């Protein structure tokens, strides 16, 4: 679809099938698939280009993203227990809509949503098919209109889910009706000339498009009977009425040269309009249109469908390639097929488990080695994923909030791994594995939210962000600063847990190493935070005309720098020692979280790109837990006494 996910402009399109039944008439086609999708057919379909959310992407991504939004997962589990991959689901949805409408692809998070639209809930957070929701859809749209008029703060959770359900069903509508134009036939049996021209009494739209010049001649040419002219005019009017009014339908073909918007791909309707307009050379577009029509006509048989798809694939790829818009399609399909961020999570989880085993069986050195390998594989998978996303978008690694999660997680794993390699204390590696696991889990959860709001995790950027130089330097370094702050905070947590549960008893190096590592990571964080923050100011100076504007996002970055500087100077001055430094480091993690997520929620300032509804609760929970950890540690310290080597010393006489 080629629009933002907003239901208001497209509600009318829900009634498009009604219009279609008035204008043309749909011939009887097989409604249910009678064969299994062959893997080579699915592979061909996956790599068809389509433009959606301002980006040319493979059909597989379109399918996966839509399924992710509606279903919460990229695969669909059917009621008989079988699973459909994204492209298989989209194939069914486009070519066998009546069958697909029974697939339970809508996940409804709250029963209250269904009750609000007079539907009966099946179970908690259950999945529903389009046909199951259909009786309540009119009410869903009515409620969504009400919610859309409400102020953001006045919307309840149920309101937001109602709005989402409305958007999801509209998005689904465009998929399920994608091939409707191809199914139409137009009755020309009453006119001999038209019947002879098309070779049939009920030609499809693709057949008519092939004869547009003759049809137009018939409409204006002298020497023909009035009956022929009237029939031709009537046919053209019928075609006009059959075209959907919304422009939010799928855009399958690149526009013809000289189009008003050269970057905007065409829907089937655009092709029809351009063909009848006669101003542009639309040979390639009409050929693709005809190939789609042929594909629809051949869906009763697997072999003919595959052959028609091959032909369509060749034409689509040739047109997209001629504009340089097909370069990374295969790579994008591979990226989603490999799902590197999910598998890296698995490897990090396994690595952490192995690390835990080594704590109990420390002599089994091979287990430790395997843990290293698993962390390495996880890191390679993440690096591959990030690199591919860069290449596909032609952008640096960090552009969206989703990017920040995967990049920061990967950076934490890398730095943690390096710390382990240097210290060999068996502390940093499990921390890195755990952070990798948690980060990728969070990324998976956040991906759903980003796709639901932006339509894509590789979405287009606003004008001010359209600079790879600053994105590459400022955003990346700031993210590395965040990564350092969070990694240090995690190590401080290990220190606190160690003290609370006596984990390091008898190992004098345990706490010393942890402190040294934490200090090192804090220095790493400070380096990148200061560079990134000032670089952000330099960018702001080029974009908005001022180096520093006290904008919330800028202040967030400044808070990190101030806190890290405060920590290092307090340590240098002797005002904090081991325990104090670790407490400050945990607060540093809180400051990083506030800068990374908190300031976005203030909904003010020039950096308000990343507002996320409902994230306050998660942040508050995190901050409360961190407060609890600090309080517990201080209490433990108080109970066990402030004596020994941790006794605060007088400030040093001079800076060092």
């Amino acid at each position, binding site marked *: 679809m080629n629009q*933002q996910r907003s239901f208001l402009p497209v509600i009318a399109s829900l009634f498009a099938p009604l219009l279609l039944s008035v204008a043309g008439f749909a011939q009887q086609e097989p409604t249910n698939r009678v064969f299994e999708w062959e893997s080579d057919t699915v592979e061909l379909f996956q790599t068809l280009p389509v433009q959606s959310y301002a980006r040319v992407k493979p059909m597989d991504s379109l399918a996966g993203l839509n399924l992710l939004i509606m279903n919460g997962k990229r695969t669909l589990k059917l009621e008989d227990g079988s699973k459909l991959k994204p492209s298989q689901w989209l194939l069914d949805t486009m070519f066998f809509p009546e069958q697909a409408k029974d697939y339970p692809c809508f996940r409804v998070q709250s029963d209250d949503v269904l009750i609000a639209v007079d539907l009966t809930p099946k179970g908690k957070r259950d999945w529903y098919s389009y046909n199951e929701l259909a009786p309540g859809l009119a009410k869903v749209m009515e409620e969504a209109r009400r919610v859309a008029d409400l102020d953001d703060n006045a919307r309840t959770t149920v309101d937001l889910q109602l709005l989402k359900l409305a958007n999801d069903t509209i998005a689904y509508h465009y998929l399920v009706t994608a091939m409707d134009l191809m199914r139409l036939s137009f009755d020309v049996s009453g006119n001999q000339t038209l019947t002879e021209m098309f070779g049939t009494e009920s030609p499809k739209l693709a057949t008519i498009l092939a004869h547009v010049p003759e049809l137009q001649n018939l409409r204006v040419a002298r020497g023909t009977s009035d009956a022929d002219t009237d029939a031709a005019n009537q046919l053209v009017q019928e075609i006009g009425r059959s075209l959907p009014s919304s422009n939010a339908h799928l855009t399958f073909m690149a526009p013809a040269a000289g189009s008003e918007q050269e970057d905007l791909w065409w829907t089937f309707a655009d092709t029809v309009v351009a063909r009848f307009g006669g101003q542009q050379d639309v040979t390639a577009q009409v050929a693709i249109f005809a190939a789609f029509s042929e594909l629809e006509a051949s869906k009763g048989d697997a072999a003919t469908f595959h052959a028609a798809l091959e032909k369509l694939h060749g034409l689509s790829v040739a047109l997209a390639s001629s504009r340089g818009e097909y370069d990374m399609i295969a790579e994008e399909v591979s990226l989603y097929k490999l799902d590197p961020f999910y598998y890296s999570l698995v490897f990090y989880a396994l690595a952490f488990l192995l690390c835990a085993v080594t704590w109990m069986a420390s002599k089994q050195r091979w287990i430790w080695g395997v843990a290293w390998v698993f962390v390495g594989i996880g890191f390679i998978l993440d690096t591959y994923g990030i690199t591919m996303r860069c290449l596909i978008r032609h952008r640096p690694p960090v552009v969206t909030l989703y990017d920040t999660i995967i990049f920061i997680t990967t950076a934490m794993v890398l730095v943690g791994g390096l710390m382990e390699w240097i210290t060999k204390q068996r502390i940093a590696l499990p921390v890195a594995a755990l952070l990798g696991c948690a980060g990728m889990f969070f990324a998976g959860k956040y991906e759903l939210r980003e796709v639901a709001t932006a339509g894509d995790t590789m979405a287009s950027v606003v*004008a001010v962000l359209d600079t790879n130089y600053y994105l590459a330097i400022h955003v990346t370094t700031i993210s590395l600063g965040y990564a350092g702050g969070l990694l240090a905070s995690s190590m401080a947590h290990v220190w606190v847990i160690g003290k609370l549960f006596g984990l390091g008893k008898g190992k004098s190096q345990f706490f010393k190493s942890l402190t040294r590592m934490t200090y090192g990571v804090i220095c*790493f964080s400070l380096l990148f935070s200061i560079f990134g923050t*000032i*670089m952000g100011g330099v960018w702001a100076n080029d974009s908005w005309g001022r180096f520093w504007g006290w*904008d919330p996002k800028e202040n967030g970055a400044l808070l990190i720098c*101030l806190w890290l500087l405060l920590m290092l100077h*307090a340590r240098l001055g002797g005002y904090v020692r081991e325990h104090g430094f670790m407490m400050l480091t945990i607060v540093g993690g809180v400051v990083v979280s506030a800068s990374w997520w908190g300031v976005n929620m203030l909904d*003010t300032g020039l950096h308000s790109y990343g507002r996320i509804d409902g994230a306050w609760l998660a942040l508050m929970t995190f901050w409360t837990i961190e407060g609890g950890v600090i309080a517990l540690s201080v209490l433990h310290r108080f109970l066990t006494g402030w004596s020994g080597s941790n006794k605060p010393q007088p400030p040093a006489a*001079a800076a060092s």
Partner: protein
Amino acid sequence: MVKKNKSLGRMAFDVLSSFWLCCVCLLALFVLTIYGTIHQVDHGLYDAKDVYFHSYFLKWNGIPIFPGGLLCMSVLCINLVLGGFVRIKWASRNVGVLIVHVGILVLLISGMVKIQNSDEGHLQIIETLSKDYFQSSLDWEVAIWEVHDVDDAQEFVIQDASFTDLEVGASRTFTSDSLPFELTLSGFLKNCQVLPVGPNWQVSGNPVEGYGFLRRPDEKESEFNIGGLNASIKTSDGTIQEALLWGNQRHPWAIAVDGRTFAIDMRPERYPMPYSIRLDDFIKEEHPGIGMAKAYRSKVTQIDAQGNERPHLIQMNEPLRDGGLVLFQSSYGTTPGGHEYSVFSVVRNPSDKWPEYSMWVITFGMLLTFGRRLISFIRTQSKRRHMAAGAAQ
């Protein structure tokens, strides 16, 4: 043990150069930044700047209760110089730290220079037209000029600072030998609206010819405030004429004195530019199908005093820097008559590039410091492992 008495100067030096003072300043700035950020949500950026960052003290009922941003940064500057340059040991191991301190000092100084010596405003130009001045988004001025056929009329300008302190009831009189009248300004209102006097609202200041100012609460974003004040002129024969000057009025106040016509206008403060800018074309590109702006571009021509023309393209992240001014693509729009216009932010800032230079200095210093420590840490770890291995054998 005999305690050695320190001189007052030495004690002051110790305090001003101490880590303790540095930590206090950093902590105070940290707290100010948190509160200043939250303050913006309800009161806007400019108010937050005034209260937290561009102030010496935060006040409660006029009583200072916390150091403001300017005080913290000033003290931090002193601490940096005394502690970071004078007190610090000038040894090779501290070279990186010294370099970092130089960079931070430059950064702080560039901020001070910006606050004290910069002009900021905007320049709105309709396509095909040109302008040789930009105007403030926050400050006002009262301009007086004689209206005649010749285009080079001399303007008398009363600047913002000369009348914004005039509360209702207070007035100030301005005279000039070239003007056949004296002008009295009174009752400046930061944000107001002109309305016909009626029973349902209270006029602020003196009503004039049935109209008066309705005082409005300050806007969250200060650039949306529309100021107003009362004005009166007194000619040599004692005749007095009164008017309301309002920032949003369409036409200046025109007065006839001794057969000459003068115009008096309250308008955003203007800053002359050393060249004119003509907007040749404004281009907006959108991402296909989603209505999101992809790029804003303005094709302009810079015309110097000699009439020489130079074409430029100003777009997001690529401003025009020349003559001590920097012009940034800021906004755009269409006039009611259908003409496209482009809006540029304009800044005159002597320290424009200093932060960038400081960034490279700081980064170099930090790389030197932390790199050194990292190498030392790796060596220590390696040595420790070798010793442990030796002990095990």
